[in-house]
């Protein structure tokens, strides 16, 4: 039997390796290189150790030129990152020459064993630096590692074949070594940059492909879960109609009334679902609106009215309470207005208020406040900040980041039978806010009773409209 989770409602969680995580992996890749390329250092150390006991020989000056050439060839090969055979040969040559160089240093500069180790460690460090910068040359690390041992044998053989002649002066060797070390670092930089550029392009392409795939998956999941979610209220509705149709003559009036009330309730539930589904489609092209001055206080009042209609509550919404005995504390300056679209703002406020009511216990208050943020520091434009605070369950901090994504619901709510939702409300809010050039976020300690505060910042109406500033 498969382990597919089978009790997901109208929910879908974005996978953790989704496109928004694609760029995060550079750091992870770097770690991987260190992890896998790290054994290069021991390889160098082994070479260094071997050099201490092997016969010391001197090499002709032409050796230095050959060595530099091999280095350049190797780096060229790697930065091109395509010539497999060249890369292999160059690695062999470089490691061999490096070994020989160490031998020369030992003879000509008369460095002791500690000095030899130091030189080898430095060279190892340089190579590691190269891997560090050229993040994606993980294969280079493997190639160098695999070839290190045969290459050192070649190096020893070369050293013996050429034989001892006039040794280079010490300062020339050290100079040569410094120059080649610098060259390695510089070339590694260049290589890394080009590789990174390539990566960014690849990353973007991958991002779009993954995005498309995920959207397609989400769409499938949405169709499946919507179908699923519609069936339950539909069953009740069909069942009630069936009972009424067959038995209405025999049913006591009180029961008929109960059935009708129930049928209406599930119909409303169906309507809510259908509306939510429609809104998902509407979201495309949200930016196409003509901005207007939208006064905040009246919009909030109509949002409150809507919240009460949808939660089937009647009573007075002009005041500061709603029928669940909840206190909705408003602190909205009368003259505050935003520059945007009235229906969007109503939607945002309605959603936030519905959430606040849904996720906090009956009787607990809800605070709605607003203030004008004047331009200061990096804030260029005057914004209206709206805060909706409840004193309910709060949001676990580890789940906040996903809260505004489409189809995301908290695991706690998925498990709860009372808190039904589509996982679309906050996502829609975010889309509306974005379309108007604002931002939305939430702050919550995740401690029950402290609740959460949703912040919405929207551009304020321009001063020419005579409202503010």
């Amino acid at each position, binding site marked *: *039997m498969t382990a597919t989770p*089978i*009790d*997901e*409602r109208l929910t879908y969680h974005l996978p953790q390796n989704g496109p928004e995580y694609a760029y995060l992996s550079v750091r992870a890749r770097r770690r991987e290189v260190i992890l896998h390329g790290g054994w290069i250092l021991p390889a160098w150390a082994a070479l260094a150790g071997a050099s201490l006991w092997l016969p010391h020989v001197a090499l002709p000056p032409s050796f230095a030129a050959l060595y530099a050439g091999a280095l350049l060839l190797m780096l060229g090969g790697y930065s091109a990152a395509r010539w497999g055979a060249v890369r292999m040969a160059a690695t062999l040559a470089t490691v061999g020459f490096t070994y020989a160089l160490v031998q020369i240093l030992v003879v000509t500069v008369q460095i002791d064993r500690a000095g030899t180790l130091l030189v080898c460690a430095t060279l190892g460090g340089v190579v590691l630096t190269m891997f560090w910068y050229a993040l994606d040359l993980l294969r280079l690390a493997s190639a160098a590692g695999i070839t290190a041992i045969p290459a050192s044998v070649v190096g020893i053989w070369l050293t013996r074949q050429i034989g001892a002649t006039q040794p280079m002066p010490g300062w020339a060797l050290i100079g040569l070594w410094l120059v080649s070390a610098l060259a390695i670092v510089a070339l590694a930089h260049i290589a890394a940059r080009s590789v990174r550029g390539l990566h960014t392009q690849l990353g973007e392409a991958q991002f779009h492909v993954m995005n498309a795939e995920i959207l397609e998956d989400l769409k499938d999941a949405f169709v499946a879960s919507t*179908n*699923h*979610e519609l*069936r*339950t*209220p*539909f*069953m*009740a*509705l*069909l*069942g*009630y109609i*069936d*009972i009424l149709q*067959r*038995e209405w003559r025999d049913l006591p009036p009180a*029961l008929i009334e*109960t*059935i009708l009330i*129930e049928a209406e*309730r*599930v119909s409303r*539930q169906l309507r809510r679902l259908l509306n939510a589904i429609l809104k998902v489609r509407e979201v495309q092209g949200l930016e196409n609106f003509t901005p207007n001055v939208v006064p905040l206080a009246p919009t909030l009042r109509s949002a409150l009215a809507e919240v009460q209609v949808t939660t089937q509550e009647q009573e007075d919404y002009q005041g500061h309470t709603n029928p669940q005995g909840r206190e909705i504390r408003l602190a909205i300056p009368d003259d505050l207005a935003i520059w945007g679209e009235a229906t969007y703002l109503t939607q945002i406020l309605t959603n936030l208020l519905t959430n606040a009511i849904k996720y906090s216990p009956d009787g607990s208050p809800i605070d709605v406040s607003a203030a004008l943020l004047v331009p200061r520091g990096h804030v260029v434009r005057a914004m209206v900040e709206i805060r909706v605070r409840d004193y309910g369950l709060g949001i676990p901090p580890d789940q906040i980041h996903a809260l505004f994504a489409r189809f995301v619901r908290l695991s706690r709510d998925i*498990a*709860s*039978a*009372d808190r039904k939702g589509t996982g679309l409300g906050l996502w829609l809010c975010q889309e509306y806010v974005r379309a108007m050039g604002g931002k939305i976020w939430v702050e919550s300690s995740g401690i029950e009773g402290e609740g959460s505060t949703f912040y919405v910042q929207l551009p304020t109406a321009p001063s020419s409209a005579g409202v503010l500033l």
Partner: protein
Amino acid sequence: MMKGRQSVAFTTKTILVVDDDVGIQRFFQIGFSRYPDYRLIIAHNGAQGLEMAMQEMPVVVIIDMNMPELRGEQLILALRGDLDTAAIPLIILSARVTAKDHLLGKLAGCDRYLEKPVTMQEVIAAIEEVLLIRESERAARMAHLADGGKG
């Protein structure tokens, strides 16, 4: 709806409905009120369903698949695994309608798989049908499924 055990007439058959959806619970309360032969008890989740099945020994259990605490097929496995409850006919009533879901239900050991939406009449028909299933038939079917589940 949930009457005490003492008031149950000798002939009434107890039906346990396990569904977390309040709308469905209310529907069954109203629906079963028209069938005095049956006594309805309701559990809101799988864990509660298991407990009530053990205590009340219903003649049929109607189980939703998507539930918190204990999912439908887990509940079925638990009921089938217990000697006391293994013989109770089980009906799945689910909004999940793919062939895979049907197979999952059958493999867990349900006797009938009903897809939402169904009417009260269809539910009653299913109950009467599963009440006729003999234990030997079920054992044979489960053995067949266990053999390879190809059936």
